[in-house]
């Protein structure tokens, strides 16, 4: 897979220079965090819920094969048609084939990260099928010809003025920058598409192994329209979306919606238990469930990386990450940005191309603290850094630098000596003392003549 992550440093530099973008991202992530805090703090047992969520996700990932076959059996019993896809190419082929067989030329689609990962839309469009994203944020991003910059708020990088200009240009309507009016315009344009489309594509938030229930979480009702009105519903999921039981749904819904949007529950939660049965007045005639592996079964066997599969895609780690807040989602160059993206992208897709992502972290651990299923995110970022170095992806100069650093740090005498040299250089060169990658943006701080260690040793005020 080609990743734009290879240009991370360049993209991040550009994003940091974009003051407008920073204001938009800070505002959006700040709002989400404040709302989350309110509904998380009202639960006395939030920490226990996180722990329980973690344990259940671990059980599924540790026994992925058996849960997968249990889910497939349950889903088939419900009347669903299950397709397993080993890789991206075959998943796309399966989906295209289903659409072709019912001779549909238009597909309505609700938000799904897996289809983003597949780059499904471009493949379908190349084959002459109109794909209409119906989630408002995704619709905006699709009109702009861009990709989502956040997994739950795709158009987070756009201001209402940006969107007003976009609608004016693409939808031939007068300029107004009122979110309510812009939303109404999208509703009006999409309603007809819903009524006439013969195929609807959705993602899946949770798939219960014991009952085969597909759970789809949303606020706008576009996913309900996509999964109820068309004759054919294609639900696309990856293998790790499985949870053990129908009975675990209340727990995971609580963890997901409170973390993602700060809601106790979203406006709509659809629990799909199969296609239309003979006595139902509505629903699709066919329910296809496409299950993507795409390298996940391999990850599930790795003692460290398997934890990345616990993720329930709430996006809270992005909202709280100081790096994400400063550069937004596009700079990461991956479908999955932010801390979880920096963990998933190298392990699931291509480590060489995304080797800079795990380094785009201050390792402050805020992501770990906020994760609703307790993924030890900053530990994994550190672990991946080590892996990247071990694979020899770092430059020769960086290796020499690190060797010198190590040699210095291993002896207190050498460290003391280096400190003195630093003090002297700073004294002579002043605040313009050059340090590559740092001083172009900041001033070099003053270095103390005496180190903390020597103060400890000699000064009774600090000594023991």
């Amino acid at each position, binding site marked *: 897979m080609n990743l734009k992550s290879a240009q991370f440093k360049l993209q991040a530099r550009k994003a940091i220079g974009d003051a407008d973008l920073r204001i938009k991202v800070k505002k959006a992530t700040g709002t*989400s965090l404040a709302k989350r805090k309110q509904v998380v703090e009202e639960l006395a047992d939030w920490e226990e819920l996180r722990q329980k969520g973690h344990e259940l996700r671990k059980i599924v990932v540790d026994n992925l094969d058996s849960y997968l076959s249990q889910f497939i059996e349950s889903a088939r019993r419900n009347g669903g048609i299950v397709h397993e896809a080993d890789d991206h190419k075959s998943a796309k082929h399966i989906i295209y084939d289903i659409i072709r067989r019912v001779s549909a030329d238009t597909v309505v689609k609700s938000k799904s990260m897996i289809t983003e990962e597949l780059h499904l839309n471009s493949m379908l469009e190349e084959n002459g099928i109109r794909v209409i994203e119906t989630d408002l944020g995704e619709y905006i991003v699709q009109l702009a010809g861009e990709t989502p910059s956040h997994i739950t708020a795709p158009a987070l990088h756009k201001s209402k003025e940006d969107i007003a200009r976009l609608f004016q240009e693409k939808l031939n309507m007068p300029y107004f920058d009122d979110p309510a009016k812009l939303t109404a315009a999208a509703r009006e344009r999409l309603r007809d598409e819903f009524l006439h489309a013969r195929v609807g594509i959705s993602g899946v938030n949770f798939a219960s192994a014991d009952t085969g229930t597909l759970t789809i979480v949303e606020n706008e009702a576009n996913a309900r329209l996509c999964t109820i009105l068309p004759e054919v519903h294609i639900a696309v999921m990856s293998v790790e979306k499985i949870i053990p039981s129908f009975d675990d749904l209340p727990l995971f819904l609580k963890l997901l919606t409170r973390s993602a949007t700060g809601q106790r529950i979203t406006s709509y939660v659809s*629990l799909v*238990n199969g296609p239309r049965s003979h006595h*139902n007045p509505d629903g699709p005639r066919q329910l296809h469930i496409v299950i993507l592996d795409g390298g996940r079964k391999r990850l599930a066997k790795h003692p460290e990386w398997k934890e990345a599969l616990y993720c329930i895609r709430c996006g809270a780690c992005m909202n709280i990450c100081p790096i994400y807040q400063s550069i937004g989602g596009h700079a990461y160059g991956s479908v999955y940005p932010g801390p979880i993206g920096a963990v998933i992208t190298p392990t699931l897709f291509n480590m060489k191309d995304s080797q800079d992502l795990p380094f785009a972290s201050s390792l402050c651990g805020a992501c770990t603290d906020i994760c609703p299923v307790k993924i030890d995110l900053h530990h994994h970022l550190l672990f991946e850094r080590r892996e990247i170095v071990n694979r020899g992806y770092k430059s020769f100069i960086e290796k020499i630098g690190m060797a010198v650093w190590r040699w210095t740090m291993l002896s207190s005498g050498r460290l003391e000596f280096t400190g003195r040299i630093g003090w002297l250089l700073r004294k002579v060169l002043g605040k313009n003392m050059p340090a590559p990658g740092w001083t172009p943006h900041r001033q070099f701080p003053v270095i103390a003549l005496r180190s903390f260690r020597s103060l400890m040793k000699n000064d009774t005020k600090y000594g023991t």
Partner: protein
Amino acid sequence: MEHKLLSLFQSRVQDSGGWCEIVDSEDEVFTTLQKKYTFEKEKVIVSGRAAEQLRASGLPGVDIETVHPEERRGLLTNAKLGITLCDGLIAETGTVVLLNHPSETRELSLLPEYHVVIAASDQLYESLDVCLSKIRRLYADGLMPSITLITGPSRTADIEKTLVVGVHGPREFGVIVI
């Protein structure tokens, strides 16, 4: 206890942007709706099971079951108000639980401009856990129908995190608890 749960439910529905009225009997359903909306009879569409239950209360509206299946979608998308019953209320979140019922198309809670649910106070559960496990037990021997959880009107915050109510689904959502 039951009274406390009911007022929690009411306040949670309001938190989610919906309205909730508690009435003493079925007779008051129509008058409650009249206070909220001015509407023409043909713009009110009632589900089969709601029509059956509310026939005596004088509630006007078209019983969806009497409409030809091919005309239903057009009728519903132009309708002002869709009225359904439900299969459970969740106090903790202000949620209404709907099973995919043979005489109650899900399009009724989806296509019209407003959606109103008529419920009974004995349908109230403290939490989603209790309600879902009861539904599961009910269908232990057969296939469980699809379930929809509805909390407030359809909404989005995709533009600058500004809350806008009424996206692709109903713009208003209300519950009348008898």
